[in-house]
């Protein structure tokens, strides 16, 4: 839709200062909020109903690694802001440079997450419920509580969907970068970059919440 920025201009209503793309992105993010509310809400309900399924922070999950990953994502938000600031000044080179930095950081985040998943899976921390009975560990009803089926299921679903959002964000960012290289954005028209930023900051925000409730609490 990015190309539409130019086409659909400002609203006719006096005092209505948000152009369609930006408005549309805000509206879309509202629905995203509800989506993650649903997932996180289910997590909270399941966790309160079956605390024995959920291990203490740091017992199963690698908190330091993820903390580092969180730092990466926050940095990527900063670089995104930089990119936006650059194009506001009409600085094409800066825009491309900072976009590339954001892409790099986003990709790194996903990469780290993939590594995290593989390690956890190799340790037997998986979403499949039956696996917990197979490996004598993790069955909430016997042995050390390293978490039960609900733990794996909720963990992978929530972080997985966030990871998917980051991945999609990175792909869109490549598209924005490609258009930027075509000089599509100027100090006057930078709608594409702005909504890209909105989305990216949202994804970042969601991660900070997830990190807190899934890893730290």
């Amino acid at each position, binding site marked *: 839709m990015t190309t539409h920025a130019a086409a659909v201009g400002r609203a006719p209503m006096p005092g*209505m200062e948000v152009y*369609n793309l930006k408005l549309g992105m805000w509206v879309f993010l509202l*629905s995203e909020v*509800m989506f993650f509310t649903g997932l996180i809400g289910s997590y909270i309900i399941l966790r309160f109903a079956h605390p024995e399924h959920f291990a203490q922070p740091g017992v199963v999950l690698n908190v330091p690694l993820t903390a580092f990953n969180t730092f990466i994502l926050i940095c990527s938000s900063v670089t995104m802001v930089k990119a936006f600031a650059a194009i506001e000044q009409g600085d094409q080179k800066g825009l491309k440079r900072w976009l590339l930095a954001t892409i790099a950081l986003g990709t790194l985040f996903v990469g780290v997450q993939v590594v995290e998943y593989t390690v956890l899976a190799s340790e037997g921390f998986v979403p499949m419920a039956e696996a917990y009975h197979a490996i004598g560990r993790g069955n909430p009803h016997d042995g050390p509580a390293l978490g039960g089926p609900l733990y794996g299921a909720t963990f992978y679903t929530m972080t997985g969907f966030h990871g998917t959002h980051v991945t999609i964000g990175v792909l869109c960012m490549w598209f924005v970068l490609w258009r930027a290289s075509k000089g599509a954005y100027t100090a006057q028209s930078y709608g594409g970059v702005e909504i890209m930023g909105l989305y990216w900051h949202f994804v970042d925000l969601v991660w900070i919440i997830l990190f807190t409730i899934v890893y730290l609490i």
Partner: protein
Amino acid sequence: MSTTQHDMVNRAEAGGHHDHHEPPFIRKYIFSTDHKTIAKQFMFVSLFFLVVGGLLATLMRWQLGFPSQPMPGGGVFPDAMMAPTPGGAIMLPEFYNSLVTMHGTIMIFFAIMPLLVGLFGNLLIPLQIGAPDMAFPRLNMASFWLAVPAGILMLASFAVEGGAAGAGWTSYAPLSASGEYTGVYLGQQLWLVSLAVLGFSSLAGAVNYISTVINMRAPGMTWFRIPLATWALFITAVLVLLAMPILAGALIMLLFDQTIGTAFFLPEFDGEPLLWQHLFWFFGHPEVYILILPAMGIASEVISNRARKPIFGYHSMVLAIIAIAFLGWIVWGHHMFQSGMNPMLGTSFMISTMAIAVPSAIKTFNWLATLWKGDLHLDSPMLYAIAFVSLFIIGGLSGVYMASTPVDVYIHDTYFIVAHIHYVLFGGSLFAIFAGITFWYPKMFGRLMNERLNKIHFLLTFVFYNLVFWPMHNLGLQGMMRRIYDFTQYEYLQPLQPMNRFITICVFILVASQSLYAISFFWSLFKGEKATNNPWNSNGLEWTVPSPPPHGNFAEMPVVYRGPYEYSSPESDTDFLPQTTPPRDRPAPAPVPTPQGA
């Protein structure tokens, strides 16, 4: 003025970055970005699904009217649906369950919802607020072309091994979470995927509608000058926007339970079956209002217009819509009174549910008051709209019974519920849809529908509709539970056989009489009386443009001076006063031509 100029140019571009040349066929009719074409596409597809859903219902009714008796022509069905016996083909319970499930799913998600939101949302919003098109025309096209594969997947599930989903349209876990409980394996997964895809389609639409209403209104189209149909569709879009993601999340979790073996809803691993119900109804109750609010808006338009009288209490109508949308979020629990949830919660949900009856009451009274001392032109759109009001009253009143928790204990999961939901969704939504299609048909196709056929169709539908669904109240009161393959298994229900047979026969006639509307629809496409710009002497902006409107809709930037329901105003010599007519004391400004107008 300069802003207006600037805005106006942008708005023009919004509507058509393709108006100067005639677009090729595929882009004009298949992959069109014109909101009017997309509206028609939604209409034809969902009317098709409406027929499918109706046929599924008649199959279901056969089993209920003539339990476990060979069905004439049942032989054409695969053995997995109708068992071949010496006497003839007999419906299998698993197929009956699939019918129950798919009838509900298809009617709600693929017929009523796309008709109300997809058809009228696309058709009316830009026209009624004076916009050249949606804010995101391509996203709009995407929304339709996501709905199509979703529908195909849903239908395809009938063909797969194990048959289509059979856990009810609510797909309560754990029944829906594991194939071993139902014998349905791939079918249930297709059901989940299909609805998830449809969810994306609805989201795309909602984002579009909201942005368009907020951003693309013509000068002077203030919030309280927006026609009620658009108001309702706007609020509906907000509900879709916030409710659909919840469903999507739940669907995905259930799909994971089905496929990769998670245990969100599987109690054998401490999953929570009630979690599904809470998630589903947290979406599902707003969904109920998604299915009725636009119908209310359409009825308001038609009633006010055909009564030649301002809608009674425009502001309270708008506020009622908003109130319903808010309250709709805190009443989901009334679907779960008997689910084993804490009785205290039950009470609080009962109170909130009782409260939500009030705005609905307000709207009903306002419609009645609109008719009072009006000048009622009883042509087919008006008849459908009046039927909507009278049947919605019944549906609303029967809702009070199940809102009262003790009474609900008895009637929950009985045919009383079935009667209630059909009085709201068929008597309510569908009659409003008939009204709307008939009313805006000239705007869509430039011709009027066949009045006589419509009136016969209305009469038959109204009579047999009531003969079908009114007795269902009585069945429920006698204790007949819903979704039951063969109620004669219960001794105390066997006396209900005559009534069930009667209902079934009426269903056959009801379904058959729908063909009249189809005939009228297609006949009028070619032979219908040519329509002027404003055949109903209406005030709305959509009636100031040609029928059908060109790309970009408005040759000149419309300027709005008043609300949409100034009928029989002393200010005008006729009995209507279009929103664009400047007040007597103020002369119209020089019209500002838009590019395509020039």
